Every structure is written in structure tokens, then in C-alpha cells.
């Protein structure tokens, strides 16, 4: 790597340790999808200064899944750490801003709510707002909880501006993420990584050699006979899990009894209407449909369970529901929800679809990639391969996967829908104890069971509970003691404040222009 020569000239790494104490010196990434290039870019950035070579192998013949366009706010920290300029990045990936996800028809047919990147209301006299709101609803109040959320009100009118840094301002009460073209994002990161010394090899891996004694992966052989040796292998090969599963036989925890959707069909279409700063997830008879608006087109897909609907019917349903002309043939994808028993096994760390799959209902996959990369950095191995590193990595990733899993199951389970066999199944299925306890605690007493690690915080749980019709039966006694009249006056004025502030934000399309993030019409391929 470019920087390692410099570091060596400055006296090298006297303490980096020799032999077993030294960090591994070569990393091989298999796969050039979103996971592969995010890993390559982050390693190139963060390991600059260590004598490490980074190689990425990808196969044009196999290609990438190519979907995966909606994100969560954490991606901004990932980009910021790489030093990526927002407007430049948005222009080159045709990106839009995202304030949350609209869920249509989930709790009941005809329902709609937005799960925003931000909290609802604000605590009153130390009591969390959802207790106040629940009390208000039981007293006959009709406003949904989202009437007290600035990002929701802005999103519903297609408005957007950056949050304000001043914590006293209502404009600081939200966060945001992006919706982007996944292929362009991977290409963007590829050019970033290659500039920083990552070596890219095109070719298909056809054989994997393991060390006879330790079982560690030693060498990959490509279809043209080339061999690639390495110390740490990051498996970003997608669903197939070339190293983690096909080679190491790590095993997979199948969660499809809780999240039965196992297929998707995707098709982009022409944009229609104003540019909306949110993703939409519409519940259908045997799954749901996503709609992700980008600057130049809209991404669409139908995620479904093959036991309840055929591929043809799923594609037909999707095509009939597009709000613009389709721009490609429908693409079918198959998956099994769950995760590898160990995402770090021997000297292989699986990141991306090779590590596990949770359906894109809350746009979590790219975030899980990002987390994996962060933990790998924190636990970067030395040649002694201390087993504690893999144990800690797996402990942390297992927690994240399980908590995202529970949050996704909530969307299906907290429903009154009984109109199709699919909804009857998910409504009545037995959910993990960890989720059943949470739901009871909220339903009975408005308790939001929270945790330290796990991407979805209290506000997200409240948004989905409340959005899908769970209003706590009892509130905090401090909220119970409030008078109806006072409550209605306060909430009415609060709602007006939010609505007024939201109405002052510009349309997202206008805002993209203002900050110079409007896509570059001249050179759509011009990713340098």
C-alpha cells in the first residue's frame, strides 16, 4: 500500500511485533458487490500505515445482486470516515435523501404510517412522549403519533433540508439516510479503493485450498489458473458463501419460520411525480412491495413467500402496481432468511449476503455490512489468530442480527390482517420469546424494552408499535394523572409547531439543486 512505504521510511513499525504478534499482512476479499467494495474501501482507508496488501477478486461472469438501494443514517458515518463529499457522492450515485419508510397496509388494510429517522414529540415532565400520546388517544384524541414528528410531516410533503446542529431547534429532531443506485455506489467505492492501493483481479474462483492442519483458507485458484494466496479472507461472495459455507461448511440458522418470504422480483421504472424523500413498503397478499425513488428512476420490487404465490403472479402484481414505465425485464431472486452460525470462522470473515440475510423491509443489509467492517477493524487479527477475536466478532454480530430479526418480525406479527393465508400465518405464528416479551411490555404498559447494542432505538420501536395499532393499555402513572383538557390543548399546539416547521422546508428536488447534488445528466457512467 502506498502509505506503508512512507511509514517504513519514518521508522517502520517498531512495535507492530514480529511473527505471531504482527497483524496479518495480506487480505483477500472475494466478491465485488456492495459488501466487497465497502470492505475494500474501508480497509484501504483505515489500515493505511500498516504493511497490509488488499486484493479483491470479482467475477464479471457471475455479477452482483444489484439491488440494495435504501439505507439507514449510519451510512453517513461510513462515508464521512472515508472523507466522501456528500454532494459529489449523491450526484454520482443518483442518490436521494431518505427520512424514513412509509408502511402501507401493514397493521390493517388502508393504514399508512411512516417510521421516521427521529423521535416523536418530546418528553413532558420527564415522561416519554408515547405515554402522553397513549393517554391522549385513550381520552379520545384522534391524531396519530406521526402528527408529532417533523421528518414525517416533511416527508409526506416531499420536503427535505439537512437537520440543524442546534439541539434546541425542532429542526434537530431527525436524522436522514440515502437512496442510491447500488451499482453506482459500488463503482464509486471501487475507484476510491483502487486509488488507495487495493488490487482488483477479475476472474472466477474455481478452487479453494485449505491448510491441512488448521483448516484455514490458504489459496484461491481462478478459472484461468492464477493463484491468489492470503492470510485473512473476507467472503463477500453473496448468497453462495463461497468460503464460509461451500469451503468451511459453517452452517446456517434458518429463520424462515418467522420471516417466511423467500423470493423477490425487482424491476426499475421511470420516475413519476415529485421526488419523495422516503422509501415505501406496501403490504400485499403474500409479501410486500418496495418503492425506492432515485433521481433518475424508481426502484421497485416484490418480496414474497413462494408457498403462497407463484413467481408469475408475483411479477404480474408488481408490474401492475408500478407508477412509471418499466425500464428492464423483471429479475427474480431467491433467498433464505437467517444467518451463518459463525460469521467469522477460522481465517474467513463473511460480510454481506454471505453472512446472512434479513429481508430489506427496514433497509438493514448495508448497515449490517458496515457493522461487520467496523467490528473487523476493531478486532483486526494478528498472525497468532487469537480465538477471542472471532468469538467477540460473532457475539456482536449475532446480537445485531437477532435484534434486527425481532424488529422485522414485529412488522408482520403486529397486524389485524386476516385476509389471506399468508397474513393468517404471520399474525398467529409463535414469535421469539425476546419479541413476545417486548410486545407485551409495550401493549400493557407502554414499556419500550431497550438495549445497548442494536441498531433500532426506542423511537423506532415506538413508531412501528403505534403505526401498527398497538396503543398501550396503561401509561406511566405520571401521564395518567394529567387532565384531558390540558392534554388536548398542549398536543394541539405541539402539532401546529411541527406542521409549521415542516411546511417551511424546501422540496427535496429543490434542495438537491441548492447543494449541488442533482445528478450529472451528461455522464451517467462517469464515475471516476
Amino acid at each position, binding site marked *: 500500500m502506498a502509505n506503508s512505504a512512507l511509514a517504513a521510511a519514518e521508522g517502520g513499525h517498531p*512495535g507492530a511485533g514480529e511473527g505471531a504478534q504482527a497483524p496479518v499482512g495480506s487480505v483477500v476479499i472475494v466478491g465485488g458487490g456492495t459488501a466487497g467494495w465497502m470492505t475494500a474501501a474501508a480497509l484501504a482507508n483505515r489500515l493505511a*500505515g500498516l504493511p497490509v496488501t488488499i486484493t479483491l477478486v470479482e467475477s464479471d461472469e457471475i455479477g452482483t445482486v444489484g439491488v440494495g438501494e435504501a439505507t439507514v443514517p449510519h451510512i453517513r458515518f461510513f462515508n464521512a470516515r472515508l472523507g466522501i463529499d456528500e454532494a459529489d457522492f449523491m450526484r454520482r450515485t443518483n442518490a436521494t435523501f431518505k427520512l424514513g419508510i412509509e408502511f402501507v397496509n401493514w397493521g390493517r388494510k388502508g393504514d399508512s404510517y411512516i417510521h421516521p429517522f427521529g423521535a416523536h414529540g418530546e418528553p413532558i415532565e420527564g415522561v416519554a412522549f408515547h405515554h402522553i400520546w397513549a393517554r391522549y388517544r385513550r381520552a379520545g384524541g384522534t391524531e396519530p403519533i406521526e402528527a408529532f414528528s417533523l421528518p414525517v410531516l416533511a416527508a409526506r410533503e416531499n420536503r427535505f433540508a439537512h437537520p440543524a446542529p442546534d439541539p434546541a431547534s425542532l429542526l434537530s429532531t431527525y436524522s436522514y439516510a440515502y437512496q442510491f443506485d447500488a451499482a453506482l455506489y459500488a463503482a464509486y467505492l471501487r475507484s476510491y479503493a483502487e486509488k488507495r492501493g487495493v488490487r482488483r483481479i477479475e476472474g472466477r474462483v474455481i478452487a479453494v485450498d485449505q491448510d491441512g492442519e488448521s483448516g484455514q483458507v490458504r489459496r484461491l485458484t481462478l478459472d484461468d489458473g492464477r493463484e491468489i494466496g492470503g492470510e485473512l479472507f473476507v467472503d463477500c461472495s453473496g448468497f453462495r458463501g463461497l468460503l464460509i459455507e461451500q469451503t468451511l461448511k459453517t452452517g446456517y440458522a434458518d429463520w424462515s419460520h418467522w420471516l417466511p418470504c423467500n423470493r423477490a422480483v425487482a424491476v426499475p421504472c421511470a420516475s413519476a411525480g415529485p421526488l419523495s424523500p422516503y422509501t415505501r413498503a406496501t403490504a400485499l397478499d403474500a409479501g410486500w412491495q418496495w418503492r425506492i425513488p432515485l433521481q433518475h428512476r424508481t426502484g421497485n420490487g416484490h418480496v414474497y413467500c413462494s408457498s403462497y404465490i407463484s413467481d408469475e403472479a408475483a411479477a404480474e402484481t408488481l408490474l401492475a402496481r408500478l407508477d412509471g414505465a418499466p425500464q428492464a425485464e423483471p429479475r427474480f431472486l431467491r433467498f433464505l432468511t437467517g444467518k451463518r452460525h459463525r460469521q467469522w470462522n477460522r481465517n474467513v470473515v463473511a460480510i454481506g449476503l454471505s453472512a446472512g440475510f434479513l429481508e430489506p423491509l427496514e433497509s438493514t443489509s448495508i448497515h449490517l455490512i458496515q457493522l461487520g467492517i467496523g467490528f473487523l477493524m476493531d478486532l483486526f487479527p494478528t498472525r497468532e489468530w487469537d480465538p477471542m477475536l472471532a468469538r467477540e466478532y460473532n457475539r456482536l454480530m449475532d446480537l445485531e442480527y437477532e435484534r434486527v430479526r425481532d424488529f422485522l418480525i414485529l412488522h408482520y406479527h403486529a397486524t389485524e390482517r386476516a385476509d389471506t393465508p399468508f397474513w393468517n400465518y404471520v399474525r398467529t405464528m409463535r414469535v421469539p420469546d425476546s419479541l413476545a416479551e417486548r410486545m407485551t411490555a409495550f401493549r400493557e404498559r407502554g414499556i419500550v424494552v431497550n438495549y445497548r447494542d442494536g441498531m433500532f432505538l426506542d423511537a423506532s420501536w415506538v413508531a412501528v408499535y403505534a403505526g401498527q395499532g398497538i396503543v398501550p393499555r396503561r401509561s406511566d402513572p405520571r401521564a395518567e394523572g394529567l387532565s384531558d383538557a390540558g392534554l388536548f390543548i398542549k398536543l394541539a399546539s405541539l402539532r401546529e409547531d411541527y406542521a409549521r416547521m415542516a411546511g417551511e422546508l424546501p422540496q427535496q428536488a429543490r434542495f438537491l439543486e441548492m447543494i449541488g447534488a442533482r445528478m450529472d445528466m451528461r455522464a451517467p457512467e462517469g464515475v471516476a
Partner: protein
Amino acid sequence: MAAFGSGAFGALPRSGPAERVAISGGGLCGWLAACLLARHLPHLRIVVHPASADEETRPDRSLGVPLAAEVLLPGDLEHIAAAGLRGGDLIRHCRGSFMLGTALTGWRAAGGPAFVPFGEIGAPLGPVPFHQIVAAARARGHDVNMANYALGALCAQTGRFAPPRSDDASVLSTLSFGLAVESDALRRLLRDDALAHGVQHGEAVADPASLCAAADLVIDARGAPEAWSENGGEQGGEDWSALMPFDRALVAKRAEPGTPPPPPPPYAHLSALAEGWQGFVPLAGAMTETLVFAAAAPPAEVTGALPEAHRLAPGRSAAAWQGAIVRMGAAAQQHDPVAGLQLHLALADVVRLIALFPANADCAVEAAEYNRQWRERSDCAFDYTVLRLARNGAKGAVWDRLRAAALPHRTAYRHDLYAANGRIALHDGEVFETPGWVMQFEALGIRPRRPDALAMTVPDMAITAHFEAIRKAMLAGVAKLPPHGAVLAEVCA
């Protein structure tokens, strides 16, 4: 927001069922619960019942060992303030003294005393945590004392301290402090405050269960039972004596000589002895002392005082909240007090009960969540305490036995992970964050086998410059501070 200024609902009438709370045990734990509940939930009708007619004359075991002084951790002071109690009052009425951490002597095999401060250590360098930078510097042959980069430790060394002002943007704003208070004076302060907020005295009752008839919720604050397995006939209590083997404690308080007496040092002191440990917590004008050991092998100098020693029975009950009875403080769990968490744990119980206070008699959901959080906090306190007792470098047969003892999986995991690469595994319910754990490991003589790879990417020169910049800013900040004694005198004036 203007429309939602504090007290927006202050004038609104409160409705809902009256809540009757009976507290069994008029020790520090009972009055702490009474006072905070009365202040946060003014609709409650609270009665405190002594556990026996002569309770006032007996040692107060409601938090565990009847220590002469207790310590409020930095986060605890926020809860005290949120209840509307003033720190200044605690200092004036309870001989309060600011606490910046604990000096540990004899806990590591090599090296002198160590200081475990509250609050942050140093500052991260980009994405790399400070303690990993230190590990990298050490791997390159530098001798680094981490406490030199902790503001609390520098203040403790120089005896300078004042609570940071809210508008202070300098390094001083990161100063994290607790408070040492005289236990009995705190009990009286909380009692008087509770009575002023409508709490009533009740008659002495030996069995909390008998209070259920006249109350919606009963708080058992009588202290630890004789044995955890027979706690009120419940199943599943845990006995922790294998990893917390000391079962006796002697406590003392002596006035500091001199008029006026010298100002108290702003830290506690903890020495490992061959047969146990000895702790000193300073108060304004007094020094309190605790000696903890096993009755089977007492230090030679205390054999005469053995009958006066208080019993210590580490363990916990299966669940703190069962039916309509919530066990709080030592009635639910007792740890060896070596980590100084007795008051912290009881306060956490009270704060948790306020957040989960039941709206009516059916409180199974609140109880389940309370117990979950209580157990998490208890597990974390357990890990911190047990690692201090069983993974140190102290000299003596009892320590050798403890070091050889097998630890529960999670406790061992925390140690093994840190020893491997300096990572701290944090869990839900943690008492201490990463710096608190790192400094405890430092004080016990445990260091990562190898530094973090990212830390090794930082050039030597950058590390040296970073250390110097931090140290310079801290020393400049500390130099501006007044002597600790002067600040206490001003509060009390």
C-alpha cells in the same frame, strides 16, 4: 419549546387511583425509596414501617454492610438532582466530600498504587480509543501511566477540585465526580425530606407480607436475609460466597484531628491485605474505615474485635419483585462492597421503580421488566466486583485460591477478551463504561497481550504529540482549580 416549558402540567389536577405504598425497613434504603417516590409521584400515600421496634439502635444493614460512608457515583448525582434534592445540601448535612475515584494499593503484583478515576481517560485519536493508543505506545517500549491522562487522577494528586461550571468549554467540562456522604446523616436527611413531602411513619412490622393487606405495593428494604436459598422460602436464590468469600466487616469512623481539620482528599483508598481488604472513604472532618475479611481466617490484629464484626452474605434472590413485594437494596442482592456500589445499586432500584411504577394492582408486566433490568445491573456489578477480587495480583493464600477459582462464563469472557486485545465487552445494565473497566484492569495489573492493529497504524510521533497535548491541556485546566477543601468550605459557609 416555549409551549412546553417545565411545569406545563404543574397546575393540572391529577386523577387516577390513590396508591398506597408500604415500606418495610426504615434504614437508608427505605428512606431513599420513600423520599424519591414521594417527590416523583406525589399522588402516592407512603408509609414507612420499621422492621423492629428497636430498629433505630441497630446497625443499618439495608444497603448491605453498614458502612460509615457511602459513595454516590457521577451518574447517581443526576438522579439525586432530578428528584429535586440539592448536592449542596448533601455536602452540608452529610459531611459530603467530592469523589474523583479510588486509589488501589496492593492489587497488582508489580508496580505501585494505581488510581481508578471516574470519567474519561485521555482522548481518542481519530477512530482509535485512547487505551489502545497506550497499548501501542507500550508495545513500542514506552512506559505510560494511564492515570496521567485522567483529569480525575490529576485533581486527586494535586488536591484541587471544583465541579465544572456548565458554561465551561475547556477540558474541565469532562471532569466526572461523585460524592462521599456519611451514611447515617444521609438517612436522616432523606427521612426528614420524605416526611416533609407527606410520607408517614408506621408501626414496627417484622414481616413485610403482612403489609400487603393495607397497601397496593410493599417495598422490602430490610437488608440481606440470613441465607439466600431460604429467603422467605423462595427457590432459586444464589449464594456467591465461592467468589466473594469474605463474610465479616468491621466499620469505623474517626474524627480528623486539628481545628479546623485538614480538608478531605477527593478520593477513596483501597488496600489489599493478606487476609482481605481495607477501605478508607474520607468525609469532611472525618475518615471512615472498613475492614473486610473471612471469619475463618481473620487478620491477626482484629481477633479481639471479631464479635463486633458485621456479617456479610453475598448473594441474591431469584427475583427482586414478586407479587406485590419489591425487594430493594440488600434485601434483593448483596455484593462484597469492594467496588463501592452499595448505594448506587439501591438508588438504581428506586429509579427503576419510579420509571415502572404500576398504574394499577395488576403489575405483572412492570415486575417482569423491573426484574429483567435489576438482574442485568446485578450481573454487571457482579462481574466488576468478582474480577476485582479474583483476577488481581494481591499476595495471600485467599487471593491465590480466588485466582484459581473458575469464573462464570461471562465474567471470564470479559477478562479474556481484554487480556487478548484490550477490547471491553459491554452489556446491557452496565455500571461502568469502557474507561471504568480499562482502569480497573490497569489497577489489577492486567494488560492486553497485543495492541489493536489500528492503533499500530499511528506513527510514534503522532502518539507522543497526542499524549503531550492532552497532558498540557489537563495540567493547565487543573492549575486553574481551587483546592478541594476551599470549595467544600464555600458550599458549607
